[in-house]
């Protein structure tokens, strides 16, 4: 992870302290103070390691006491066990993740659902919020202050308040158990709008004015000038939206009715609700591993933007 580096100048850290001549003592103290945090890092890694090795253990090994810390005979059976069959008994073989759900493509279907939903909500909500933010930040129209205050006020309302009525609305619209039920109610995100407005307000009007003078229409200005200007803010917000939607659980839990429409978190929860025994945790951890893969890769690729995005939102919000 990189944050704006400031390598040479003195900074607040465990290396800070008395004048230069104490350099060695200062360094030693810095290391000493850091030690507990390195140990803390071990407690960060250990659970992940435990999760990871479980993915590759056999059912018998998962039940072993004391547990092994390197899989004895690493196997991919927790994803797909070719020797398992629904109708033919085969001792020591359990269904892999991709065999646990009786829908086409099994767990892959849920990954696909989550992906579609996450992308649609991220793109959709950023587009409509940037449109509205442009108007509120840069247009002199009646009522914009009222609208903005209303939107800010709504940010304090825990979304669970709307859970039940929204459910009934979905029913009335016939959107239960559909992508529309996932996506449409999630599009108007108050905090995104709030953040974009703040960001736009800090941008001078000259570029926009110049475009108007050149005769560009408002829609074109939005598309060609405002959106590019907003790029860092949009990147920051997309991180939040992607993470939130990928992990969304309670709303899907309520509106999903058929097996096919579940998203990854709902499928994960269902997996653990069927199977409680230790020998099933290989499969459960394998599913968790798959569920985490997209966001972790997303993070590793866009690391720079992550930090910047979080900082941006933290400083502005």
């Amino acid at each position, binding site marked *: 992870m990189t944050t704006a580096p400031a390598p040479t100048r003195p*900074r607040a850290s465990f290396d800070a302290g008395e004048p230069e001549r104490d350099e060695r003592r200062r360094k030693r103290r810095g290391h000493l103070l850091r030690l507990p945090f390195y140990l803390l890092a071990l407690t*960060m890694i250990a659970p992940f390691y435990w*999760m990871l090795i479980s993915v590759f253990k056999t059912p018998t090994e998962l039940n072993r006491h004391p547990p092994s810390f390197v899989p004895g005979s690493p196997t991919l059976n927790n994803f797909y066990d070719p020797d398992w069959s629904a109708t033919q008994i085969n001792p020591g073989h359990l269904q892999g993740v991709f065999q646990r759900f009786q829908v086409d493509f099994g767990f892959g279907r849920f990954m696909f659902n989550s992906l579609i939903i996450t992308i649609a909500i991220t793109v959709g909500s950023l587009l409509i919020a940037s449109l509205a933010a442009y108007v509120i930040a840069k247009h002199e*129209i009646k009522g914009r202050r009222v609208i903005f205050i209303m939107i800010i006020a709504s940010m304090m309302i825990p979304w669970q308040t709307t859970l039940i009525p*929204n459910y009934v609305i979905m029913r009335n619209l016939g959107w239960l158990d559909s992508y529309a039920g996932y996506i449409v109610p999630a599009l*108007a995100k108050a905090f995104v*709008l709030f953040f974009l407005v703040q960001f736009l307000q800090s941008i001078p009007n000259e570029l926009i004015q110049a475009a108007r003078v050149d005769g560009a229409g408002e829609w074109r200005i939005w598309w060609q000038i405002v959106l590019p200007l907003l790029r860092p803010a949009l990147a920051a917000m997309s991180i939040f939206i992607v993470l939130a939607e990928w992990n969304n659980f309670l709303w899907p839990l309520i509106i999903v009715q058929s097996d096919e429409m579940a998203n990854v978190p709902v499928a994960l929860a269902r997996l653990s609700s069927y199977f409680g025994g230790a020998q099933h945790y290989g499969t459960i951890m394998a599913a968790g591993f798959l569920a985490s893969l997209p966001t972790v890769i997303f993070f590793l690729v866009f690391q720079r933007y992550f930090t910047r995005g979080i900082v941006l939102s933290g400083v502005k919000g």
Partner: protein
Amino acid sequence: MGTHTAQPQRARLRRYATSYAMLLPFLALFLAFLVWPLANSLFLSFTDFDGITPARLTGLENFGNLLFEDDRFRHALGNTFIYVLASVVIGTLLSLGLALAFSGSSWPHRIMRTIFFLPSVTSSIALMLMWKWIFFPSDVGLANTVVGWLGGSTVQWLATPSLTIPILVLMSVWGGMGYGMVLYVAGLNTIPGEYYEAARIDGATAWQQFRSITLPLLRPVTTYVVVTGLIGAFQIFEAVYIVFRGTNSVGGVLDSGLMIVPYLYDQGFTHFQLGYASAIAWVLFAIIFVISMINLRLGRAMKEL
């Protein structure tokens, strides 16, 4: 924008129309899926709606029951406050510590930051299932293995009421401190180095520098970390639902993990008390509202100082 008054009336009208058209998608969705449901939920909170038979107005009965009679709600409220306090305080302190430890740009620091940030980008339900597996009740689980090394006997982690909130706090702190750390690192990097330079020349010790320069200048970051932490913690649901849920109720053994939102879920979706559940949601709103207001006040007071 006053420069445009010279434009012809028609053009201005058209601009107005365009402006509203651009606002429309957001506003329409906002009204349909937030404002309207909110009005409904407020209405439902004054009824005995059970989800199936038509709602009947009961006035303030739900709120009266909640605040004055419902022991379970009081219990949920108490649990939530303890959980929120512990997880936010411990989480914030560790975030700050981590930031002070690993704010550099050398590769060991970057790797450490990545490690601590990893839970923030891992599927949250997957992490909860991971904890469930770590705290597995028999001795094949990781936690019990470690206890075994230390010479202890098998602990029934998830079925011991006194361990419920500590485990929830552990999960929250473990998963969230990396996020706070990133914010604090950014905050640290905005503090001008000259301040420390000057302090050193004055002979200030590291602790004095920390007390008089770092902490005060980090106050905005601290406020942000604490307030977002508070609001998030009050809404805890998944951790309780996935890890502690028993066959009979969402709150775990003896309701030791019962919190506000799990209780809302329990009343609304397993007890046919949707009206009552709506009232719980509005009490939660009131709590978060008060916190936000206190924060606003504090922020203002700080500025005046």
